[in-house]
């Protein structure tokens, strides 16, 4: 553990606990007056506090990931004692061993797709108008109104289909993928897709290129794709819900 980051504020230095068979737990002692139920509940209301513990947590994991395969624990994974932690790991050992095999040499990439609904709606209406532009003025007007309404209705349906197709396509290019329930977006910016992909380290170029190509294609229709990574495989260590 030499050279490891200091860990969360107020905790002891991260230490390695031998769980046998080449598996080590990395843990730090967390004083209950700072990391008990009440202080955490209170802290969770405060983004600045959450940041102050999230960043060091991530730093320790990233540091360890340089040296081997890490099964990243979520923030505030707390055990009563080292023995309890070892007991838990022993109980879950088969699952953990399988997990280590699945994620070894791999990293997680996150993709979020948002739709600017207002501009997409404008564009859809424009297209509808062009289609309806022919014929007598009266008929064209009615047709245009109808087309505009249809366009608006179809927009969201198309959007979710596009997101599904994109997820499916990128899933094929990854070792594993997970889709999370989309978080609420800003007003007028709908989050259509919040997904994580597990990729072999050093083999991410093709995946990135695929995302870039899709992003270019979809940008004209008001979609924005944001790819982040590499991450420790946080979304792949929990069982599929």
């Amino acid at each position, binding site marked *: 553990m030499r050279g490891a980051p200091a860990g969360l504020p107020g905790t002891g230095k991260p230490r390695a606990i031998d769980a046998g068979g080449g598996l080590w737990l990395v843990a730090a002692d967390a004083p209950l007056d700072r990391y008990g139920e009440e202080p955490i509940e209170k802290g969770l209301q405060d983004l600045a506090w*959450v940041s102050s513990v999230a960043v060091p947590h991530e730093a320790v994991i990233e540091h360890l990931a340089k040296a081997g395969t890490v099964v990243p624990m979520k*923030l505030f*994974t707390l055990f009563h004692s080292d023995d309890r932690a070892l*007991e838990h790991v022993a109980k879950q050992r088969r699952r953990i061993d399988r997990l280590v095999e699945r994620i070894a040499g791999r990293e997680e990439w996150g993709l979020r797709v948002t739709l600017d609904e207002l501009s997409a709606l404008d564009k859809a209406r424009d297209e509808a108008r062009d289609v309806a532009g022919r014929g007598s003025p009266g008929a064209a007007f009615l047709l245009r109104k109808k087309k505009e309404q249809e366009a608006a209705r179809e927009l969201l349906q198309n959007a979710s289909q596009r997101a599904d197709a994109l997820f499916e396509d990128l899933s094929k290019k990854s070792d594993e993928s997970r889709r999370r329930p989309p978080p609420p977006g*800003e007003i007028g910016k709908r989050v259509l897709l919040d997904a994580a992909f597990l990729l072999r380290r050093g083999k991410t170029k093709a995946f990135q290129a695929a995302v870039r190509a899709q992003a270019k294609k979809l940008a004209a229709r008001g979609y924005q794709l944001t*790819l982040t*990574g590499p*991450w420790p495989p946080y979304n792949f260590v929990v069982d599929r819900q």
Partner: protein
Amino acid sequence: MKKRSEAEAIIERADASLLEIIDHVLNKGVMVHGEVILGVAGVDLIYLRVSALLCAADKLLPGRAK
């Protein structure tokens, strides 16, 4: 932060924002093993808030966390 052109806007490399980190490490799944010493009532709340902010993360936090 560099100005993002349309094509560049797509991929943010390892320079993830602070909120992305929170989203990953917290990610709704705060787990407590052994003894249950932590209720998780506040977690959904903070997760929702973080998720909402994530979409606007770059605007809120132009500085990078790493």
